[in-house]
């Protein structure tokens, strides 16, 4: 009995007090405050329509960010996601429209392509011992070159109407992309928190050498993170393509910055080993709510860039100054 009590005492979470609890959930608290303030001040913001719109817009970028999250978690960085998005979009339309393949075959093919790109990224970093920043910058440009050669930079339109459901469909009042995002986030949450491969991502990012000496296949884990990132990016890209029903190489332009901001907003450490899927989802919603509000108020795109930049700097500053030792 006594033994049992002692165990209970020592297995209590948040024994380090409310400060660490607050630090863990800071982004959620900020998000709630933001939403409450916006809802009280703007009557347009609080309509169901607008909120669903925000969720829908956040969902695909959140899925891409969840991919990037794994790469950053293992202490690397994937710069090639914007190119993967363009590649998936244009080749998907190419397969489905120009070559006339069934949609599901086209999906399989582009998923496979992305996974190959992810594997190449991972292999360059792990086996080629290249810094991930450089390796993925190279693949970014190579892919860009390839899809421009393929398409000449022109969009390919004429995807079947039924495919539109992925990007713009509704289940009741909830947009389908949101449901997809929730399902993926839930699955990835289970993976990160309740499986050994999930914990391996954290271990590799936290201390590569110690993980290796504890019997973790660190090469596999690092490469797997890149593959996972590419695959999730492909899903996001398909969703974005479905919205406009046309393959467009420019679809991923400028998304990298937003994705990085979201991952960092979500409390992910850029040096690896720390972060949560839930944080990434909240980060995506956070950024989208701010963009939405700026649109509602009528702030133009260029000012939005400035504001987003300031947010990223602020978050990184807060993170690096409150880091627990």
């Amino acid at each position, binding site marked *: 009995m006594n033994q049992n009590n002692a165990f209970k005492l020592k*297995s209590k979470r948040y024994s380090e007090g409310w400060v660490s609890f607050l630090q863990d959930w800071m982004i959620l608290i900020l998000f709630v405050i933001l939403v409450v303030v916006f809802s009280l001040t703007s009557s347009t913001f609080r309509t169901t329509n607008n909120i669903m719109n925000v969720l829908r817009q956040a969902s695909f970028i959140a899925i891409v960010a969840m991919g990037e999250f794994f790469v950053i978690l293992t202490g690397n960085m994937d710069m090639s996601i914007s190119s993967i998005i363009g590649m998936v979009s244009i080749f998907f339309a190419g397969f489905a429209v120009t070559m006339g393949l069934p949609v599901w075959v086209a999906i399989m093919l582009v998923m496979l392509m992305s996974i190959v790109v992810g594997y190449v990224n991972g292999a360059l970093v792990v086996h080629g011992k290249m810094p991930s920043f450089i390796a993925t910058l190279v693949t970014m440009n190579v892919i860009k070159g390839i899809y421009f050669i393929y398409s000449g930079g022109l969009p390919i339109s004429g995807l079947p109407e039924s495919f539109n459901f992925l990007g713009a469909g509704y289940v009741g009042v909830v947009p389908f992309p949101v449901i997809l995002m929730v399902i993926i986030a839930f699955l990835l949450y289970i993976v990160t928190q*309740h*499986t050994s491969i999930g914990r391996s991502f*954290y271990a590799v990012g*936290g*201390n590569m050498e*110690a993980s*290796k*000496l*504890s019997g973790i296949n660190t090469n596999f884990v690092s490469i797997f993170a890149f593959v996972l990132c590419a695959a999730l990016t492909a899903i996001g890209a398909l969703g974005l393509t479905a919205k406009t029903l046309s393959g467009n190489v420019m679809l991923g332009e400028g998304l990298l910055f937003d994705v990085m901001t979201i991952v960092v907003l979500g409390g992910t450490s850029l040096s690896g080993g720390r972060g949560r899927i839930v944080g990434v989802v909240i980060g995506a919603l956070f950024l989208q709510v701010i963009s939405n509000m700026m649109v509602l108020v009528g702030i133009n795109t260029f000012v939005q860039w400035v504001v987003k930049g300031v947010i990223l700097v602020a978050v990184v500053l807060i993170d690096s100054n409150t880091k627990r030792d």
Partner: protein
Amino acid sequence: MVVAVGKHMDNIHMNTEKTSRQRVAKEKRPLIEVKNCTMEFPGVTALDDVSFTLVPGECHGLVGENGAGKSTLAKCIIGENRMTKGKIFVNGEEIKLSSYSIRESQSLGIAIVHQEFQLMSDMTGLENIFVGHYENKGPFIDWKEMRIKAAGIMDFLQCDVNLNIPVKRLRTAERQIVQLAKAVLNESKVLILDELTAVLQEKDIENIFRIIDILKKRGMGIIYISHRLDEILDCCDTYTVLCDGKHINTGIVKDIDKPQLIKMIIGRELKQVYMPINQNFGEKLLEVKGLTGPNAFRDIDLEVRRGEVIGIAGLLGAFKTELVHAVFGNHKITKGKIFVNGKEVKIKNPKQAIKLGIGLVPDERRTLGLDMLFDIKDNTTLPSMQRFKKWKLFQDHQAEAKAAYEHNEKMDLTYTSLWQNVKKLSGGNQQKIVIAKWMLRDSDIFLMDEPTRGIDVGAKFEVYSLINELTKQGKAVVLVSPELEELIGLCNRVYIMFEGEIMDVVEGERKTQEVIINSLLGINKNESK
């Protein structure tokens, strides 16, 4: 500034006698005086009403267990921590605490040299010594002048270190000397050596002692923090013992002996340091034949049975660490065979080694042993994750916590929660977790690479009794250690390596300090072959 060094050089002669060490200059004006220092961190009182005095020419040993407050006191003196209560006097003048900083302490001539390096590893020794204090000739750096001055300092320290190559290519001991040279250049009056020798071999420690002697004669005051009590007894004039943040005693080193010191440090008497070595062996667990690694060890033969502890001794450059890593699948092997349980095995990576029941306690606890972002539970269960599965897929957190709890309790770990980050634990407690990792994994062969490095006396003894306990359970232990006493007290057999080869194997009556030291230095190379 270094002209002053030159003047001193003439007066200094190598003095091997320890007369100066025993002289305590009470009458001199203290360099540093700390009065009634109390240092409180949220929830912890790290120092409780501690007073401390350092006079010129004195080497003052600061001893105590991990967490006793030695480093905190040092940090208060250099201004890294701001004490909650108390006063500091430097050169007799009171310091205004509210504005005291590392910058100010540096300008007052207080320097600290850590065991971890504060050198820029890609810059040469010369650049490192002068960084921030470059000699200028007009707008340009005067390299020639700096080279002359550096040579003067090296002469003064009677050391020969190549200052023209990047410091990362220097030996550990040489890098320490570069750090000391930097302190000399800055004309420091007070030098704090924090665990400087923890990673050094005995020969190099002797050299550091010699330098300390030179610096003392120059009127410097030295605060010497170390876990190795023999060093305190050898090199210091006075000592101060801290325990749980409280001042226990201050006195003159020559008036005490080691057992007394240990008693003060841990607050109890240790009757027996080493328990009788287990002599009850089982079958051969691990055998290595003709193992050769590229540019490292050659033709290594060794074996260890159940219930046996074998030791590996060797100086720096003996490739002991490489050898155990090779057995663990983490270092290249070009030739040779490894047998586990009598069967020949090919170990390509640590994962395979772990499957075969081998566990490695690496020498670098912080960078190789633990994941500093992980909590206690996750660190303890890291190699055994696959054992705690629900429906073969999900991690069973509850079962993991229970197992981690049981093993850590067995190790007498001091902690508040299993979800506590390992970063804040003391070195001894961290090491216990590294060992608990492999106990939980049910490993049979424990490769321990300097398991007592940088941990306090109390924790050391706990590790010793743990090794003893392991042998009683029929485990096999391979122990690498720089401390001969430890090897002799714990091992059934000691393999002595010299520059990658096994020089000698000693057991029974031949297992003495003298025999081992001779082989360590490669002296009876021919005799043993």
